[in-house]
């Protein structure tokens, strides 16, 4: 399925937006390496699975199309402001927000600072928290250039079945220059806010989770070796009435390893937790 591509102007940057499907608005915030809609509109299977039920709006996060975009992005706050600007620009009224990994982290930050912007929040294998004795995996080591060894190390980190098709297709060992430049562009963009070892967290986020007031679903892959289940429980404990779903048979890259199962878990929760318009109405009264 091909997404419809467009650009949205915000004060901070021009944002590449992919749209597909029909239904309630759902903003999808992608992760580092496997679920970004390509520049020519090729969408990951997860978004195709959500498309029959939702109008999916999938922006490319800063730097993921071109690393020059992140020149002025210095902190998580810059990303949160960009997302708020983008929601306003697109006229999104309390959409469902789904984020994986890096996108999940940014979705959680947005929900902390601007809860009125979201209808519901779904965090999939989300980065963002500092959990004692459970540091995030050394993602950038695994994604480091490896001229002779290929991409085996990063595939083994992200996938439950590192040698199966989704992993090999997305992260081939010895890619052509164009594919390889895209890979390094994505890793580069992520390292702008994810670098500080041990990577990918905001030390203040855990204590602020209680500010999240929208219905929240925490979805974790049982085989997640990047951010382990302790992070899922920390999100679940920190956010009032959050629901946790653990899906087995997939690793961190569940969005491509088990897209149907993930889409089904996302949809089931959203069906039960009302439409964004209802949430909006009840909140404004």
């Amino acid at each position: 399925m091909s997404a419809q591509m467009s650009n949205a102007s915000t004060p901070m940057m021009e944002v590449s937006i992919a749209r597909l499907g029909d239904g309630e608005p759902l903003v999808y915030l992608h992760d580092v390496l496997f679920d970004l809609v390509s520049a020519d509109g090729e969408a990951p299977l997860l978004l195709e699975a959500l498309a029959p039920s939702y109008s999916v709006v999938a922006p490319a996060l800063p730097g993921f199309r071109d690393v020059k975009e992140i020149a002025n992005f210095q902190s998580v706050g810059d990303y949160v402001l960009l997302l708020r600007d983008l929601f306003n620009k697109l006229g999104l009224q309390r959409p469902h927000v789904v984020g994986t990994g890096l996108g999940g982290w940014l979705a959680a930050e947005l929900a902390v600072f601007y809860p009125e912007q979201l209808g519901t929040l779904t965090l999939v294998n989300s980065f963002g928290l500092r959990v004692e004795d459970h540091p995030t995996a050394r993602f950038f080591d695994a994604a480091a250039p490896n001229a002779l060894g290929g991409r085996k190390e990063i595939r083994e980190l992200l996938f439950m079945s590192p040698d199966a098709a989704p992993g090999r297709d997305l992260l081939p060992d010895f890619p052509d220059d164009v594919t390889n430049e895209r890979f390094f562009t994505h890793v580069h963009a992520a390292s702008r806010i994810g670098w500080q070892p041990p990577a990918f967290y905001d030390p203040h986020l855990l204590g602020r989770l209680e500010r999240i007031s929208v219905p929240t679903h925490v979805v974790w892959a049982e085989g997640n070796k990047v951010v382990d289940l302790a992070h899922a429980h920390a999100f679940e404990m920190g956010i009032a009435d959050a629901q946790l779903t653990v899906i087995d048979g997939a690793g961190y890259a569940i969005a491509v390893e088990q897209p149907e199962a993930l889409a089904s878990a996302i949809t089931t929760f959203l069906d039960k937790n009302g439409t964004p318009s209802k949430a909006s109405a009840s909140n404004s009264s």
Partner: protein
Amino acid sequence: MIDLLSNGRLEAGFVVGGGPEYYNFAMSPTSARDRFAEALSLARRAWSEPGPFRWDGEYYQLDCVNPWPRSLQDPHPPIWVCGVGSPSTLEMCARENLGYMGVNASQGHVDFVGQCEFFRNAAVEYGRQYDPARVGWLTHIHVAPNDDQALEEFGAHAAYGGLLTRGFGGPAKTFYPPGHMPPDRLAKWERQIRENYTAKAMPGDPPLMGTPDTVAERLIARLKDYKIGNVVMAFQWGSMPHDMVSRSMTMFAEEVMPRVRAEMDRYLDELYPDRTQSELASGGAVK
């Protein structure tokens, strides 16, 4: 202070930093180049302008910059930047009138010839006469009474040197953190390493090791191809003992250096008849 103590002979080297340092200091390598550019502007201003002044930068905020004493060289000592051939670094040096020091011992002769040409063209593009004194090259040199002996001596000690370097630097994967090199360059670099390795086509350029005659001939040939006026020579490497290094350096100083100097002076004068030391003496400040 060092410039005063040395009677104005200080030359300052600025480096963006190696990959492992971004791990050690927990600093995102994606902002390394911008941060470096700001630090460079700040240092140059601090060196060349009597203070105090305020600095409100993106990365550095200082209420009162007022270094004392100022350098003897006016406006400031020459600045060199080390690089391994990144076009953005070469371009920056040409634009900012900084010396460029190629430290790409792992690359081949042809690569560095290309980088020198790129620098010369960039200098001209920025409306500046190319000054061979602004480009340098770092290389290993070992001089011995005969060629075989030189290679044998260096080889034995360099093997240890390689080990030492790896021990200092940490795992190879930390050498190229994301953002340290632009993605397009990193992608090509990774492929080239693989192709070179697969084809066993690592640069087979003749090493600068051998008798004074061998070393002088090879060094002159290299420098002529590069059209540069500086070479930094690493005589000691790995476990090479002091007496061996001294012998090599003495032979170099007595038998190689005078020939290289005379020949390169003649050659560069011919190529660049109006080259002067004036730009170097100006401390690299943009006039």
